[in-house]
C-alpha cells in the first residue's frame, strides 16, 4: 500500500476505535449520572427508589417550614396538590425560597423522607420550573381542576378553595 494511504488508514482506524471507546464510556457514564424527576405524589406513595439520587419538585406547603434553633437544619413539606412529602435539608436556602412557591430538590428518599442535598428555587418572579409546572398541572387534571397559576391556592392543600 502507498505509505500515505497506509498512514491515513491507521489514522482513520485509530479515530474510529478511539471514538467508539469514548462513546461507549459516555453512554455508560450517562446512565450512571442521570437523575429522574418524581412529583410529590409519586414520592409519597413510594414509587421512587430509596437511597438513589433523584430530583423532586413541587410547591412548599405554607406553614410547613420548621427551622432548627441550633443549626441550619430545616424541614418542610412539598405538594403537587394530591399528596405531601416531607423534606429535610441542612444548609442555606436560596433567596427565592418561600412558602407557597415552587422548588426543585435534589437528593435521596430515605424511609419516606426526602433528604435534600440541594434546594433550587425559581430565579425570577414569573418563572416556574417546567417539571413542577407539569407535575402540578397533571395533579390538577386528575382532580378535575381547571388550569391555574402553579402553586397558587396550594395554601389549603386538600381543601377545595382553588380559584
Amino acid at each position: 500500500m502507498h505509505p500515505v494511504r497506509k498512514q491515513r488508514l491507521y489514522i482513520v482506524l485509530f479515530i474510529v476505535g478511539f471514538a467508539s471507546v469514548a462513546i461507549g464510556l459516555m453512554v455508560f457514564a450517562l446512565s450512571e449520572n442521570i437523575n429522574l424527576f418524581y412529583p410529590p405524589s409519586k414520592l409519597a406513595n413510594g414509587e421512587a427508589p430509596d437511597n438513589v439520587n433523584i430530583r423532586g419538585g413541587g410547591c412548599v406547603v405554607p406553614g410547613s417550614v420548621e427551622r432548627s434553633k441550633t443549626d441550619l437544619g430545616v424541614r418542610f413539606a412539598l405538594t403537587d396538590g394530591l399528596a405531601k412529602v416531607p423534606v429535610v435539608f441542612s444548609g442555606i436556602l436560596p433567596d427565592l425560597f418561600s412558602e407557597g412557591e415552587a422548588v426543585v430538590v435534589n437528593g435521596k428518599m430515605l424511609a419516606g423522607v426526602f433528604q435534600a442535598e440541594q434546594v433550587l428555587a425559581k430565579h425570577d418572579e414569573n418563572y416556574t420550573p417546567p417539571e413542577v409546572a407539569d407535575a402540578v398541572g397533571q395533579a390538577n387534571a386528575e382532580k378535575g381542576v381547571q388550569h391555574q397559576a402553579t402553586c397558587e391556592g396550594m395554601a389549603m392543600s386538600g381543601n377545595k378553595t382553588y380559584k
Partner: protein
Amino acid sequence: MIAELGHITLIIALALSVLLAVIPMWGSYSNNALWMSSSRSLATGMFVFVAISYGCLTINFMESDFTVAYVAATSNSILPWYYKLSAVWGGHEGSFLLWMLMLAGWTFTVACLSRSLPEIIVARVLAVLGFLSIGFLLFMLLTSNPFDRLLPDTPSEGRDLNPLLQDPAFIFHPPILYMGYVGLSVAFAFAVAALLSGRLDSAWARWSRPWATAAWAFLSLGIALGSWWAYYELGWGGWWFWDPVENAVFMPWLVATALIHSLAVTEKRGVFKSWTILLAIFSFSLSLLGTFLVRSGVITSVHAFATDPERGVFILAFLGLVVGGSLLLYAIKAPTIRATATFSWVSRELFLLLNNILLAVLMLTVLLGTLYPLIADAMGLGRISVGPPFFNLFFVPIILTLSLLLGLGAATQWKSTRGERFSNLLLIPAVVSVVMGIVVASLYGENFAWKGALCAALGAWVMSVTFTDWWKKAKAKRGSTIAQLFNMTPSFYSMALAHFGLGVAIIGGGLSSVYSVQKDVRMEPGETVSVAQYDFKFEGMLAVDGANYRADRGQIHVSKDGEFITILGPEKRHYLSGGNMMTEAAIDSNLARDLYVAMGEHLGEGAWGVRIYVKPFVMWIWLGVLFMGLGGFVAAADKRYRSKTKRSNAPQASAISAA
C-alpha cells in the same frame, strides 16, 4: 417617534442584507466586477442602519420611554444611567438587537480589513454574512421586535432590570461574549466561501485565521467574565455549574479552540483541510444551537429567556437551513479536497491532530449531556437531568491529557521530529512539574489529595514547557540570547501566552476544586467560626442604603492566628422596585486565596445563616483565561495576516516537494 425610527431602520437594514446576500454572490458567478464590489458598501450600509436602530433603542432606555413594551419590561426610572445603558441587552429582544449589531459590526470589519484579499472571495464572504443577517433580522422583526409599543395602556413605571443583572459585570459580559459568539460566523463565512470557490489552500487558512482567533479570544474572555460574575454574584461560590446555557457557549468554544489549532496546520502544512472546514461549520452551528437552547425556552437555566414556542421554531428552522445547507455543500465539494503533504508519526501535525480529537470528544460529551434530557423528554422517558459528575468525569481527564500532550507537542517540529529533541527540551519541565507536584502535596500534608498534586504538576508542566521553548528558541538564534528573547514573532508570543494561561488556569481550577473549604453555619452576633485556619467573627448587621435598594449588611471580622485581615460586608439587598431579596457576597481575594462570605436568611433572634468559603488559587482560573484571550488578540493583530504579498503559493510548493 424614536422607536418607530428604530423599527424602520431595522427594516432598511433587512433590505440591505437581502441585497448583500444576492448581488455580490450573483456577481461572483457571472463575473461582474461591479456587482462584486458592491459588497463593501452594502455591508457598510447594513452596519450603519443596524447601529442607528440600536442607538434608537438606547435613547428609549435613557429617556425611560415606557410606551415601548421592551423598555417597560426591563427598565425603571430610578435605575442608574449605566444600568439603563446596559439594560438595553437585559432581555430577549434587546440582547438580540445587540447580537445583530455585533454581526453587522463583524461584517463591516471584514469589509474594511479585506483589501488584500481577492475580490471574489470578499464578495462571497460578505454575501454569506449578509445571508445570515437576513435570518437574524427576520427573526427579530417577525417574532421579537424590541420597538413594539404598549398603547394605550402605558405603565407609569417600568418593571425594572432583574436585580441579578444590576452588576458591573453585566455591562461587559454580554457584549464581549456576543463578540465571540457572533464572530464565529466570520470563520463560517470564510469556510462556505472557500467551499463555493473550491479553493481550499493555505491562502484560505491564512485569511480566516485572524478572524477565527479574534472570535475565539473574545469568546474566552466572555466566558471567563461570566464565570467570575456567577462566582461572586450568585452567592454559591462555584465558578462553573455545567448549566445547559454555559454548555451552550462552552461547546462552540471547544470547537473554536480545535479550529484555531487545525487552521495552523492547514496554513503551514496544507493538511487537515476538510477537517478544518468542518470545524468552522460546526463552531458556528453550535453557536446557533446555543441561541436556540437559550431563546426557545426548552431548558431550565438562569440564563433562559421567557418562553415562546414561535421563536424556538424559527431558530430551529434557521439552524436546520444553515447546518443542512453548509453540510450539503461540504458533502458535494469536500471530495475534491486533497492533502498535498505527508507527515511522520512523531510530528507536530500528529500532536495537533490529537489535540483536535480530544477537544472534539469533549465537545461531544458536553453535547450529549446537554441534549440528553431534551431527547428523553421528547421520547417520553420522563423528566431527567444530567448532573455535574457526568461532565466532570470527562472534562477533568481530557483537559489533563490535553495539557500533557501540549508539552510533548511543543517539543515537536513540523513533518517529523527526532527522539532526542524530547529529552533536550522536556527534561527541565519534567523535573519542574514533579517538584511542583511534591511541593503542593507536602504543603497540604495532612489532607493530601493526588488530584491536587496532579493538577499542580501538569499546570507547572505546561508553564515550564512554554518557558523552556522560549529560551531554547532564543538561544538557537544568533546574537545575545536575552535580546533574542524579545525578538520573537507575534505568533510565537501569542501561542506562548495562551499556553501559559492554560497552565495557570489548570493550577487554579485544580487547587481551588480540591482544596476549597466550605462551611454553612448558623451564626449569632459575637460568634466566631474557624474555617481553614481563618477565624470569621460575626459582629452583627447594619442597615445600608444604595442607589436603588436597601440592604442589610453583615459585619464579618476576619483574622488568622489573631492577626486582623479584613472586614467583609456581605449584603442582603431589597430593591425599591419590588421583587425578591438578593444576596451580595463579600470577597477578599489575592493570588493565593479567596475569602468568600455570603449571607443566608435571617433565622430569628439575631441569628443568620452564613456561607463561608476559603478557596485557594481561585483567581488563577480567570487570570489564566485572561492570558489565553490576550494571546488570541496578539495573534489576531499579527501584521503578516494583512500583508499584501502573495505568499499563498509558497507553502504549496514546499509541501509537494516534501511529498
